[in-house]
């Protein structure tokens, strides 16, 4: 079924089809429409699910953890400060190995208050053990949300997963999308270590160094397995529904002399910049990084790349750009742009490419040197 929907609506539609048992969420701009839509689905009896109107995001995640541990499919959505307020429980969810699925609408962090898109909220959760993916279109939001339940809940993964979408520029943007009949694509929820009174055990008690170390190693083991699960799930999705997703989305990459690397909506608009540059005779390409955890194994050694970073680690560098430096032998031109919803057009992106200085960092639009 084809319809036109916002990114937030795309999330809600996917959740409706995944039929979670428990949703616990707290409103925050620009995520509110998601929870409101889910509340409406429940009120209209289209979704049979327990909605817990928690008093904070910390509790939202705690409730999802508790519910998941009893063997329930769970979902929550948040953004920005809501995500930060969950931080402790994000770590907990991963360590507890509960496959909670979350939509995070990327937004900047206060102070000053700022409700617009930025990736620092999600980046700042990069050590929590969550799978993270960034979508760039409403269709992709919807498709990825559907896959998220299957990936996170896979026996080989059993880690929570966060689907990111840019605040306003995707959450509130309407685009055409196709709703699919998911059929058995998302298997019923099953958690091998769900609470069972017939076999009572204590979850997460005090754990000595060596055992603790092994459980942490197991989390990383599952992260690594998730690469395969993701690949298989995305392949199956392509087979069944005809849309193909990979760790990254490549556009005109093959013969490109220079690559624009970005995430989220910037990564999509970069394709337009590529078209523009090609028209000017610059052989550009675009590489949109979809998966952030596990971080893709990119083969960019020796390539000329321009990374646009919508999130920053103060005293270190752009998070995407530094991640690429760490994982491949590239020396990117690191452009910091779009924090707090700063407007960046494909013209600007084309400029970044033209003006690139490999190995340097540039804060877009800031006059004095940073």
């Amino acid at each position, binding site marked *: 079924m084809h319809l*036109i929907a916002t990114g937030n609506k795309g999330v809600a539609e996917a959740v409706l089809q995944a039929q979670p048992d428990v949703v616990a969420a707290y409103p925050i701009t620009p995520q509110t429409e998601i929870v409101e839509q889910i509340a409406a689905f429940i009120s209209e009896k289209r979704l049979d699910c327990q909605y817990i109107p928690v008093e904070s995001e910390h509790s939202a995640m705690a409730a999802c953890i508790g519910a998941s541990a009893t063997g329930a499919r769970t979902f929550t959505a948040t953004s920005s400060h809501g995500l930060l307020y969950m931080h402790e429980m994000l770590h907990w969810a991963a360590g507890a190995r509960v496959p909670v699925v979350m939509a995070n609408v990327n937004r900047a962090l206060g102070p000053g208050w700022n409700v617009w898109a930025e990736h620092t909220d999600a980046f700042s959760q990069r050590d929590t053990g969550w799978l993270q993916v960034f979508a760039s279109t409403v269709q992709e939001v919807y498709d990825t949300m559907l896959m998220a339940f299957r990936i996170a809940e896979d026996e080989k993964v059993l880690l929570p997963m966060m689907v990111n979408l840019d605040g306003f*520029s995707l959450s509130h943007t*309407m685009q055409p999308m196709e709703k699919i009949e998911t059929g058995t694509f998302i298997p019923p929820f099953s958690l091998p270590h769900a609470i069972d009174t017939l076999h009572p055990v204590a979850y997460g008690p005090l754990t000595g160094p060596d055992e603790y170390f092994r459980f942490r190693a197991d989390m990383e083991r599952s992260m690594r397995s998730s690469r395969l699960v993701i690949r298989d799930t995305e392949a199956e999705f392509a087979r069944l529904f005809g849309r193909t997703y990979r760790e990254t989305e490549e556009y005109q990459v093959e013969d490109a002399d220079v690559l624009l690397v970005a995430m989220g909506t910037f990564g*999509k608009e970069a394709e337009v910049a590529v078209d523009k540059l090609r028209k000017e005779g610059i052989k550009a390409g675009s590489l949109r990084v979809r998966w952030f955890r596990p971080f893709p194994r990119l083969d960019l050694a020796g390539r000329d790349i321009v990374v646009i970073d919508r999130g920053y680690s103060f005293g270190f560098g752009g998070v995407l750009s530094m991640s690429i430096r760490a994982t491949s032998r590239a020396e990117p031109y690191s452009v910091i742009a779009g924090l707090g919803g700063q407007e960046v*057009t494909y013209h600007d992106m084309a400029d970044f490419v033209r003006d690139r200085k490999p190995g340097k960092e540039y804060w877009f639009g800031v006059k004095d040197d940073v």
Partner: protein
Amino acid sequence: MYEIRIHSRGGQGGVTAARLLADAAFRGGKYATASPFYGAERRGAPVVDFVRINDRPIRIYSQIEHPDLVVVLDPSIMDAVDILQGLKKGGSIVINSPKPLEIPRHPVFHVDLTGIAIAQNLVVAGSPVLDTPLLGALAKMGFVSLDAALAAIRDMFSDERNIKAAEIAFRELNL
């Protein structure tokens, strides 16, 4: 690609109007996107909406620089905002106003959406809601059909007054 910029204030229905417009275009077999930019999310604060209509998928998220059409839901906004900024040469302007308005080098169309909304009692918390009548007026402009516009409205609102308002605005726009 046809690009439309809508200027309004929080509470007037600019965001919804943009969404309805994109929906109507989509129903007409086009690709369309609609995205808002709020200054602050509050009644009264200036809001800009961007609607793009195209035959191919649209990959641009940034704001429209050179609109083909500018819509002004709140003429008073023109004191604070340059509504002509980037408007294409000869690009049209639709203004919510009971009176005609002259803007050099641009065709300007007007329609009293506020009056229509008030007449239909489409008022929420004291503010007339202009989204559905606007859609009627834009249908008159031709890039979505009235049928598509009404279908989009029906999908979102159950109250028939919205349809009525759209139809009146369709009629009243001084094309």
